[in-house]
Every structure is written in C-alpha cells, then in structure tokens.
C-alpha cells in the first residue's frame, strides 16, 4: 500500500472558547480526490487554512509525503508542491489570462536572480496554452482576467492552481457562485486533470451532487470534528450523516 500524500493528525484550533477544529485526522492518498463537506461553521475552512499555512494550528501534525509541514508558510508549501484555490475569486485582474497562468508557475523556474534575465513567459507559454485549451478559455486568453465573467474567472482561478503541477491541490469551494451549467464542466475538468497528471486533490464544496460525482472519498465534518470518512456510497448510506447534514 502506498504512503499518503497528505496526512493530518489530531489537528486542533480554537478561537477563544470556540473549538473550531477539535482533533481532526485524515489521510489523502496518491491520485485521490478527497472531498470535505459539512454545514457552515463545521470547521472546514479553519482546517483548510491550517493545512495551508494561513493560520497556525494549536496542536496536531500535518505531513506532506512524510515530511512535517505543520506551520509552514503558504510560500514554503507552494515550493513543496502544494497548490490551492480560495473561496472567493483570486485572479490578477489587470494581467491577461495567459499572464495569470504564467505567473502561477514562474517562481518555480530558476533562482530569483536568474528570473531577472529570463524571458517574459519564463518558457511557460506552451504549458499555459495547454491549460488554456483544456479549460476552453482560448477566446479570452489575451484579455485582462478582471474583464471576464465570474464563471470564466473561476476557470482561470482553478487553472492557475494547476500550472506548477503540484503534487497536492486544495480547492476551496470551486463551484461557489458558479452558474449551475458550469458545475458539471468543472467536475469534468478536475477529473481530467486528475487522470492526466495524477495529483491528489482536496475539495471543500457545498454542492452535494458535485462532491458525490467527483470525489473518491469524502470526509464529513460537524462541529469541528470528523463525523465520517468513506466513499460517496458509504456517506450516502450513513444514517448519522443523513441526520446531521444531508437531511432526507
């Protein structure tokens, strides 16, 4: 059995008297798409931000390919092969779509000093074009990202997370605010990227159909703790989860 890409052990984070995350443990295996669901306030985002170095956990351990990454900054995590998207749109509005993709990977090429003399696209043009075609945003590739529709910007935002070919990508609500007609397209894209590149994904999402369709395993969080981890079929059949979250 292969070793996990991401391993979170007994992660804890409190804000004053409120225990946002109270002892969460899970593993993400190579090539796996791992979903995280839970009602608002269940601690998903706090857990996510702790893993991603945005906030410092009170206790617990986070390991990436066996190495301890607890408390590392987002910069260090990116350099170790962790990509992410945010809940809200985070594109560079004045840059073109192509430049958004290039800047998303350029810092992985050479040293800072050598980049001063590197070509503007850092040799990443073909790779950017590949993602532009995969995400079907060729017609807007040269437009400022900020001038695109919300859905198009969301696609750019997701594509950016994959430009540096990270071993692990964490996607925070990739379907939030997206037109329902695009949700299926995002799911197909993520499956294709997973099949082509073989990375592991962690996805927080409220859209149940999306999560059930996309993820290999799902973790359900309630009140800062793990209620269940299992395949979509197991989660669907879990009575406690149905009562606490999915309803009837």
């Amino acid at each position, binding site marked *: 059995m292969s070793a996990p890409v991401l391993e979170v052990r007994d992660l804890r984070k409190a804000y004053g008297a409120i225990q946002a995350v109270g002892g969460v443990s899970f593993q993400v295996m190579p090539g796996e798409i791992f979903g995280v669901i839970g009602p608002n306030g269940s601690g998903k985002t706090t857990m996510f931000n702790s893993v991603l170095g945005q906030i410092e956990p009170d206790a617990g351990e986070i390991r990436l390919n066996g190495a301890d990454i607890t408390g590392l900054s987002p910069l260090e995590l*990116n350099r170790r092969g962790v990509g992410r998207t*945010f809940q809200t749109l985070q594109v*560079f509005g*004045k840059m073109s779509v192509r430049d958004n993709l290039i800047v998303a990977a*350029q*810092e992985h090429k050479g040293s800072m000093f050598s980049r*001063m003399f590197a070509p*503007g696209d850092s040799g990443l043009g073909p790779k950017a074009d590949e993602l532009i075609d995969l995400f079907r945003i060729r017609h807007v590739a040269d437009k400022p990202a900020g001038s695109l529709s919300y859905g198009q910007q969301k696609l750019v935002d997701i594509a950016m997370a994959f430009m540096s070919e990270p071993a692990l990508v964490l996607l925070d609500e990739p379907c939030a605010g997206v037109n329902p007609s695009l949700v299926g397209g995002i799911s197909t894209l993520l499956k294709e990227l997973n099949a082509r590149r073989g990375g592991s994904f962690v996805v927080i999402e409220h859209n149940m159909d999306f999560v059930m369709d996309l993820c290999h395993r799902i973790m359900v969080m309630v009140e800062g703790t793990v209620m269940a981890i299992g395949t979509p079929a197991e989660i669907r059949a879990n009575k406690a989860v149905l009562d606490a979250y999915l309803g009837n």
Partner: protein
Amino acid sequence: MNKRNVVLAFLALAALLVAPHFLKSYGLYLLTYWLVFILATMGLNLTVGYAGQKSLGHAAFFGIGAYTVAIMMKAGLSFWLGLPAAALLCFLVGLALGFPALRVQTIYLAFATLGFNTAAWLVMRNEEWLTGGTFGINNIARPSLFGMSLDGSLAYYHFTLGMTIIFAALLWGLLRSPWGKAFTALRDNPIRAESLGVDIRGYTLLSFAIGAAYAGIAGALFASLVQFIDPAPFTVGSSIMMYLMVVVGGPGYFLGPVLGAAVGVVLPEWLRFAQAWYLFVFGTAVVLLMIWLPDGLLSIPDRLRARREAREASAARSAAAARHGGNA
C-alpha cells in the same frame, strides 16, 4: 513592442533631440530638469505603480543621491564614482525602508516612509559638517565623458537624455522579465501571489530598493544640473509632488512618469500667467483629473477601449436577443 510604438518612440526621440535648438537656456534647463524627474518618478512608479507599495519618502532618496555625488565630488572624487555610489547607497537604504512594508501597508506605510523622509531631511539640514546645512553645497562640477566636457547646457542635456534612455530601457527589460509579473501580482493580490510561490517579502524589498536606486541616480544628475544643493528640494512636500506625478501620469503605466513629470515640472511654468492663482489652477486641475481619471492620463486609451468593447458586447447581446425573438 509593436511597430506603431517603435515609430512613436523614434518620433519622440527625434523631438527630444531637435527641441533644444528651439529653446533658450532656461527652456533647456527645464527640459533637463524634466528628464531628471522622469528618471526619479520611474523608480517611484516601480514601487507604487507596479508593486503597489505606498511611499512618501522618495524625495529623501533623491536627496541622498544628490548629496552623495556632491560630497564625493567636493572630496575630489569623480562623478563616475559618485553616481554608482549614490545608486548603491540608495539601494541599500531603500532595502532597509522596505522592511516596514513587510509589516504595515496602505496609509500606515505611507506614514512610515513620510517619517523616514522627515528624518533624512533633518540630517541634511542639521549635519552642517557633512551637508553644509541650510547653506548647502555649491559649485558642484559637471562631469566629463570620454574627455568630453559636459559643462555646457546642451551637452549636459544630451548626457541626461542618454542616461534617462539607458535607465528607462533597463527598467523596461526588468518589467518585461518575470520580475515585472511578480511585482504586479504583489500589487494586485499579495495573498494569492504568495500561495503561487511569489516571494512577496523579497519583491517588496526589491521594489523599494530599485525604486530608491533610480531616485539616487536622478539625484546625482540633479546635483550636477543645478550645481548647488540645499535641503529644500528634498522635503516631504517634494515626495508628495513626486507621488502626484506618478498618479497623474498613470501608476503602473511605463510612460506614466513621462507625462506625470511634465505635469509636475512643465505645467507650473505654463501656468505662470496665472501668477498668484497658479497653485489654485494647478490644484483644481489635479482634483478634476483625479475625479475623471483616477488611473492617470495614460488610462485614457484603456478606458476608451473598455467603453468600445462594452458597447460592442451590448450590441451583440441585443442582436442575439432579436434573433431569438425572431425565431420564437
């Protein structure tokens, strides 16, 4: 650079080479003064316009550059030693000034840099043994280049023009490299930039340091242009004026400082007819400009393009709606 821009650049260069022949000595001095401020504000544009940092201390670097050259030349050293020393010293001080930017942003950073400018200005005014205090340093010589004296106004103008073009080209190259994208990413969204591996700490410090080095070089040219320096041109007021030049020209537009420095240096001369009302007219013009063009003069083509595209998109939507209506 596309063909049209190359042609425009050559036309501008030709105009700058021909213009001095139609100007009297004050006009030539003013043109050289404008070039010096283009260079200084190009550095500030990097810090403010491209990297998105707030700096109200740029005149201090301008002054440090000027005093470095003046003091070294008074000590018998060459201008050609003083110029890189001014750039290096400003680079290092700029690097140090960048550290507050790692902790504070927006108006708080502006105040931190303003405090630095005030402290630097006080050193220039009070440390008489070094800077001459309010008496300043006079008889600053102009350099010679390959045995050619640059004493004359025209020769010094050509020298300043050459230096401005060289450093503008270097900045152009820098901004076209991955560094330019990293600076823009830092300005637009530092949290996202860091999550993509952009070393926001390093680029913040570099934006201050390189911007300061440009001000230092401009200051060195300024000292030899005016041949007398005292602390007066290096006050917080001058920093605000430089910031204004960047904002008026268009922060984040490469040629913004060319227009901005023209507004800050040349426009006041054109407004001399207004006499006592000059500042009122100038201030009103700036207020109106900021209301109608908050992204500066060079944003006009972008605004027109955006308006045209919105019109075309709207027309396309109307046409599509009409087609659907017709099909129904």
